[in-house]
Each structure stands twice: as structure tokens, then as C-alpha cells.
């Protein structure tokens, strides 16, 4: 047997699986041009091909596939938001994530760990009760739990950090994590198999708009015509929108995170505390990931600062004192498109056939599947906005109808 295996391995027929076909020349025209080959753009392309039979699609990426905020997020999947609009949308995303590995025949390492958010004040307890009920109403699994239950779930957690003793917890059983790169690659592979073209190192430099409709995009590899275009980028959403002449409420802030050296498994759930501006989780490789709130002022730069790292770690150590001796292995930052109400901007734009998938701030990864599916519906129908994303339209900022998710988003992502 081992001999046969060796022979098979060395033979020229050894099946080298190709994830993506080799790069091609750009065609002069596509039905749909998607700007940005991150999770969202690739998912949109995949669902357009799968459910709507549209395959004459180019996904344009200025750098490499899944290399922007898809690669920089901390891979939290959850739906315990506050508003019914938000919960309905994210709960559908969680359900789609659960079956994604099967759908791709590719392991996205989906791991349902549960997410525990800590309350340190009575006001937070009240908002948790509301979040638990809203979540249950839309089919999610979320419970309020007390200190004893928290102790059983996370024995290593310090329940009395300094001035902020833990009073209760919001236990979101559906909370999960997945390999973010695998999600992007899964979508890319399946989309490419159906004929979608993915062009990396192809930067969109300008949008050509005539009579209120987009006709072509200008790239560093030439100008290509398009039937319609979808903007699915992160970090520079407002700058691209400005090229289409669209005003936006987006402000761009850096978000910093870091991981420690690997440890034996000690932390199953994802733990976060908005009062301590900190969330902590252990990856399947054993590394402990720390993340927190955004930087205090806007910046288009992924530089890191010692002051933010210091305050974040001070809080992390209050939660898990033994981590004071841990060594940090990596740290990084991403730039996030924050909206005033902490909800995304999805749907139509003032340019007729130019669709927006923007303003994903710090909550983009967890929405990848549902975002792709609803954006594909929007594009395929020629601009009929699906019910699920109607509340997230750009026009909500001129009709004063925001979807406020600030409290459920701020430091828990």
C-alpha cells in the first residue's frame, strides 16, 4: 500500500488542483463589473452565476484576492444585534455560513463556539434583555446568563475586573468563527468554475458615467464597458463613491488588532465587553486574538499606535489576568468605513445602474454570504431592492431613517 501511494504521488497524473484559472486578457465589455475581490464582491459574483445564470462578470481587484479587510478582520460571526432590521439580516447570514463548507465542498473551518458579551452595568443588562428577545424573535439562539453560568462557560475569566464587576452576560449560542481567507477562496473558486473572471492587480481608476448611468470603468489595464457595476470595496468606499459623484456619510477610521503566541485550548466562546472596549477569542491554532474599538480619529492608514495597543491590552489583562505573560506574535490594522448609525450602505445609488455595497465599518465579514446573495438579487433584477436590505439604502440619511446598531457593534464587532 505505501508503495502504491508513493507511485501515485510521483506520477505525472498526480492531480494538481487548480483553484483559479490563469489570468486572462480583459474583454472589452462585461454584463456586470464588480469592483473589489474581497468576500462581498466574490460572493455577489458567485450568487449571480448560481441563482441568476449571469456569468459574463468581471471581478476587478487592485491588489490580490481577499487581501483587504477580508484578510484583516477577526472573523466573528454573530447576529445578536439590536434592531429588527439588523437581526433579521445578520441571522440569515449566520444560517448561510452554517452550510457554506458543504456548498463549496471546501472547508471554511466554520466553528460554532458561541459568543459571550459581558454586562458591567444595569443599563447594559437592560439592553441585553432587549437584544436577547429580538434575537429569539427572529430565530436566533440568545440567552441572558448569570455570573455562575459565565463562570462555568469561561473558567479562566476574571469576573471582578477592577472597578467593573461582571453582572450578567448575553450568551449568543449561534456566535461562531470561520477562516476568513477560506470564505473568500471558496467563493472565488466556485464563481470561477461557473465562468466568472477574476482579475487581480487591476485597479479601477475612474468611472465613466453618461446621462446618469455608468457605461464603463477605466482601469490600469484599459477601459472596459459594463452593463452595470457593483462597488464592493472596503476602506476607500467613500473615495470611489465620490468618483461616481455620490456624497456619503462615511468616515474612515483605522481598527487595530493583534494575536499572541499559541496556547493550549482554554477559551471556547468568543468573549467581549463593550465597557472594557475589548474582545478576546482563541483561534483553532491556539493563538489568542485581541480586538477593540476603532482609533479615536479618522485616517486612511494602516499604521499601528502604541497607545491604542496599551489600553486594549490593559483591559484584556483585566479580563484574563494570566495573559499578562503572553507574548504578542503579530499586530495589524485595517481601515474601516464607519457610518453614523453603524449599519451598512447597500442598494441603489443616484447613478442608475451603479449599485452600492459600502460602509461596512467593522461588521463586514459576518455578512458576507447574505450580502452576496441580496446584492446578486438586486443586480439580476435590474434594481429591485430585496426586502431584507431595504432599510440599508443610502437614502436613509436624507430621510432621517437610520438603523442604529451602535450599542450592539461598537467594540464587539
Amino acid at each position: 500500500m505505501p508503495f502504491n501511494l508513493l507511485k501515485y504521488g510521483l506520477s505525472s497524473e498526480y492531480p494538481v488542483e487548480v483553484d483559479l484559472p490563469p489570468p486572462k486578457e480583459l474583454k472589452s465589455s462585461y454584463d456586470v463589473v464588480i469592483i473589489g475581490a474581497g468576500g462581498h464582491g466574490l460572493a455577489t459574483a458567485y450568487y449571480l452565476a448560481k441563482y441568476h445564470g449571469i456569468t459574463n462578470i468581471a471581478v476587478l481587484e487592485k491588489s490580490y484576492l481577499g487581501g483587504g479587510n477580508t484578510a484583516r478582520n477577526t472573523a466573528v460571526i454573530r447576529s445578536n444585534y439590536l434592531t429588527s432590521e439588523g437581526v433579521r439580516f445578520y441571522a440569515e447570514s449566520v444560517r448561510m455560513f452554517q452550510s457554506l463548507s458543504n456548498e463549496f465542498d471546501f472547508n471554511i473551518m466554520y466553528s460554532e463556539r458561541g459568543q459571550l458579551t459581558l454586562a458591567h452595568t444595569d443599563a447594559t443588562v437592560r439592553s441585553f434583555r432587549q437584544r436577547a428577545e429580538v434575537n429569539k424573535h427572529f430565530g436566533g439562539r440568545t440567552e441572558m446568563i448569570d455570573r455562575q453560568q459565565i463562570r462555568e462557560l469561561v473558567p479562566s475569566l476574571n469576573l471582578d475586573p477592577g472597578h467593573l464587576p461582571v453582572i450578567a452576560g448575553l450568551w449568543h449560542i449561534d456566535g461562531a468563527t470561520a477562516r476568513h481567507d477560506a470564505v473568500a477562496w471558496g467563493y472565488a473558486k466556485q464563481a470561477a468554475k461557473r465562468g466568472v473572471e477574476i482579475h487581480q492587480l487591476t485597479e479601477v481608476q475612474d468611472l465613466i458615467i453618461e446621462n446618469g448611468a455608468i457605461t464603463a470603468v477605466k482601469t490600469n489595464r484599459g477601459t472596459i464597458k459594463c452593463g452595470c457595476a457593483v462597488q464592493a470595496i472596503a476602506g476607500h468606499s467613500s473615495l470611489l463613491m465620490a468618483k461616481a459623484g455620490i456624497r456619503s456619510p462615511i468616515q474612515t477610521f483605522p481598527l487595530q488588532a493583534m494575536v499572541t503566541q499559541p496556547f493550549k485550548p482554554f477559551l471556547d466562546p468568543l468573549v467581549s465587553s463593550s465597557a472594557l472596549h475589548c474582545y478576546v477569542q482563541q483561534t483553532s491554532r491556539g493563538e489568542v486574538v485581541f480586538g477593540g474599538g476603532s482609533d479615536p480619529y479618522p485616517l486612511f492608514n494602516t499604521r499601528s499606535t502604541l497607545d491604542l495597543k496599551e489600553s486594549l491590552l490593559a483591559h484584556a489583562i483585566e479580563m484574563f489576568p494570566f495573559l499578562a505573560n503572553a507574548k504578542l506574535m503579530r499586530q495589524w490594522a485595517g481601515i474601516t468605513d464607519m457610518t453614523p448609525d453603524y449599519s451598512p450602505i447597500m442598494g441603489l445609488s443616484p447613478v442608475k445602474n451603479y449599485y452600492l455595497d459600502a460602509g461596512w465599518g467593522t461588521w463586514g465579514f459576518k455578512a458576507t454570504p447574505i450580502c452576496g446573495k441580496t446584492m446578486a438579487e438586486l443586480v439580476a433584477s435590474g434594481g429591485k431592492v430585496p426586502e431584507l436590505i431595504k432599510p440599508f439604502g443610502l437614502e436613509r440619511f436624507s430621510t432621517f431613517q437610520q438603523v442604529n446598531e451602535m450599542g450592539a457593534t461598537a467594540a464587539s464587532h
Partner: protein
Amino acid sequence: MKIMNCPLNGPRNISEFTYGGEFKPMPDPVSCSDAEWADYVFNTDNLAGVVREWWMHTPSSYWFLAERHTVTDEILRTFDPKELFTTRVEFSAAAKEIAG
């Protein structure tokens, strides 16, 4: 830590300051349209380059203006708002509340 030069208190740690948003002219709330007001309240230029913005020195509650490069994070200039506001800003009388 990054240092910002407060026009009132001199060079201080950046953690002593609070960001106060882009500097933009306010339309007259009495006479402007709802669309103009919404644009003023929510929309931003969010430029990648040199911007003019409001900052506050938190311990002294002193508001001033800064010119900062939003890609390099370089603070080019900080100055007292008196440079731009040479006279008192008067608003026209408040509009009557319209029922409904």
C-alpha cells in the same frame, strides 16, 4: 505618544484631545431645505489628503481647528477659530414648530 500642539495650552499628548469632525459651513437651519440640512448633518467629504477639522483639548474644553493630512497623519497646523470667525455668528429667529 503622538503630540498635538494646542493653540491655548501648547504641545500635549494626543490622548488629551477629542476629534470633533470636519470643518464645514453650517447652512441656516431656518431657511435651508431638509435635503441641505441632512447633507450638513450626515455627509462628509472624508478626503484622503489635507483636511481642516475641529478638535478639542479635553481637560480645558477648548475648541480649535487643525489642518491634518489624513494619509500620513501629519498635523500641519493648529489655530484658534478666531482666525476664521472674526465676528459673532448670528442665527435668524427660530422657525415656528409646524404640527405633524
